């Protein structure tokens, strides 16, 4: 599904991403872990063609993401508030995203119904623009906007950090369900080792731009990661 070849990105001489080779198969849930500055967000931005790689390429479905735009219809991402149009109401935002993905208004309304518990009554019909929502609620809007696209590839940057504990667990449950329903390929970065080992099928541990561990999740993964992050 996703192939990375000789990918290098530097900022003022400092290497932030350096991945020689990486193959991600369809239907994998990739957990990206690593301390601040490990290159997780930069890697995501490279996958979305938002920054230019110094060298190398990322292929999504055989095509270089920096050359063709064919990845856009099946890829959804939420990295930060820069992905939300903050002067729209949440509903308007969902209709907009829906429209870009050929989903009718009624279709979107139907989809949002299944999000009632996730939104917990504070997102829809709140009478607020997105810019007036709390950070956590903005994040919920972003995530729902992604899932609404019914994507084949999903990228979420630290989704657990801004959500309350209940919603964190709900999100994990939801991702697992959606993954089971259709073979979605998911990338999640997180600092929460418990959650990330629970949800991922494969963990990539990054340090200073390099992938230093590539683990298929099993019962030992959590302790292995905890060993690495031990102070």
């Amino acid at each position, binding site marked *: 599904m996703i192939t990375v070849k000789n990918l290098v990105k530097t900022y003022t001489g400092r290497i932030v991403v350096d991945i020689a080779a990486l193959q991600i198969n369809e239907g994998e849930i990739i957990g990206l872990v690593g301390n601040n500055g490990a290159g997780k967000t930069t890697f995501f931005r490279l996958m979305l*063609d938002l920054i230019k790689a110094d060298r190398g390429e990322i292929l999504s479905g055989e095509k270089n993401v920096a050359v063709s735009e064919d990845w*856009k219809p099946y890829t959804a991402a939420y990295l930060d508030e820069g992905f939300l149009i903050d*002067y729209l109401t949440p509903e308007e935002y969902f*209709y*907009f995203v829906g429209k*870009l993905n050929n989903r009718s208004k009624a279709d979107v309304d139907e989809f949002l119904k299944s999000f009632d518990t996730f939104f917990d009554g504070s997102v829809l019909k709140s009478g607020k*623009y997105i810019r007036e929502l709390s950070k956590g609620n903005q994040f919920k809007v972003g995530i729902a906007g992604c899932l609404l696209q019914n994507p084949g590839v999903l990228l979420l940057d630290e989704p657990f950090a801004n959500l309350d504990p209940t919603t964190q667990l709900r999100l994990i449950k939801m991702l697992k369900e959606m993954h089971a329903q259709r073979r979605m390929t998911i990338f999640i970065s997180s600092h929460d080792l418990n959650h990330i080992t629970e949800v991922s099928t494969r963990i990539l541990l990054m340090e200073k731009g390099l992938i230093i561990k590539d683990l298929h999740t099993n019962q030992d993964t959590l302790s292995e990661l905890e060993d690495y992050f031990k102070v």
Partner: protein
Amino acid sequence: MIRTLLNHQWKSFWRSRNAGKSLALQIVIGFFTLYLLFSAIAVGFMLQKLLTNFFPGQDIIKIFCGFILYYFMSDVLIRFMIQDLPTLTIQPYLVQNIRRSQLIRFLNVRSMITAINFVPLFLFIPFTIMVIAPKYGGITAFAFIISIVSFTLFNHFVILYVKRKSIINSWWYVIFFAVIGAFAAADYFHFFSLRDASAVVFIKMLAMPFLCVLPVGMAIMAFINNYRFLLANLYLEDIVSKSRKKEGAEYTFLHRFGNTGELIGLDIKLILRNKRPRSVAMISLLLLFYGFIFYKPQYIQEGKWYFLIFGAIFITGLFIISYGQFLFAWQSAHFDGMMAGNLSVRTYIKSKLQLFTGVSSVIFLLSSLYGFLNWKIVVIQLAAYLYNIGIQSIIAVYFATFSYKAIDIGRSATFNYQGMSAERWVYALAIYVVPIVIYLPFGWLINAWAGITAIGVLGLTSYLLQDWWTDILTKCFLKRKYKILDGFREK
């Protein structure tokens, strides 16, 4: 404490990301400010002479007194437009060991240091000293100056209050302008003479200098009112969040344009719901009235058609020119999302061109009302309209691909030069030069109407080639895409 806070402001100015750029602009603004103050002093010293020349044989003190309220009335309007609300990033200070009253005192003191507060002093004090003091004595003159200062501060704090209030509730805007408008209208239609009122009030003050306690009282009340308001509102969520319920909007007429239509709808909401783009759009609409300057009957009689065509291009193209200069930057806050979303770059560019076409068409229809002056104006405006949708819009989008600076669309536009750069000046030049280059050979060799036809025909041809242009502009955009994204991410 106030010293420390001032020091922090000073640092935040110098250490902001684009310190170099804003310094240059501050120098320009500073230069204008100095010029303004200097003119005020000059007029202040020459006032005696000016009044004697313009109103020979009349009592110049009475004339002078008649003008004071006029001045303060226009002062209110000017302040409303240009006076900045003093702001301090208050959050980090609220949790420190600083009294709230100290923070407010800082805001108030800081706010008083503005050129517009010095203009009336420079304007009126010289006359008071030179003319009033010899006639009425030093104490009266002193009391007179006190009342001038008080009126200035009264205006100052009242405007701060009204501006702060109108952020919370926009009815304050409406009421404010209604009151000012009512005064102006009453004066204009001679229901009531501001000049007579002013003369009565200030001549009374000369007769009874102790009356200056009244304006002083007014100023103090305005100050206290402002102080109380700030004290009650010095909480983080206030001022912004006491707002009405927001409703979503849908533009069904855009549906048939598919994704491009969605993007145009997005642009319309951006304009309506954000301060800075909204004021840009408002100004473009208001300047439609420039037609009364460009389309003067004498130009038409003398056949100065070249003057009319350039006026028409300017009037009908103003939206493209001014909205276009930050075309992508308006969306800088969510540009990552726009570029990662399920949306091809070509569609995005195309939506911008179609937005321009749509708005230009509306403006063209509105401006057709000038046809009542002379039908030929409509023909000229048609040529200008074709030029705008065919060529001007291409120029705007092309230059927009060079703008890498993020814009905070929530801030007001007056004196806000955020996002200005050298490319903008080249852009401005292109706007002037291109129509001249098209016009000149035909206008010169044949006649003005040939030049106008050339502008119209070339515009139409270029418009018919819009798909081809879109491809080219998409390539230009893609060449600089990462640079634009990087720039927009850096807030």
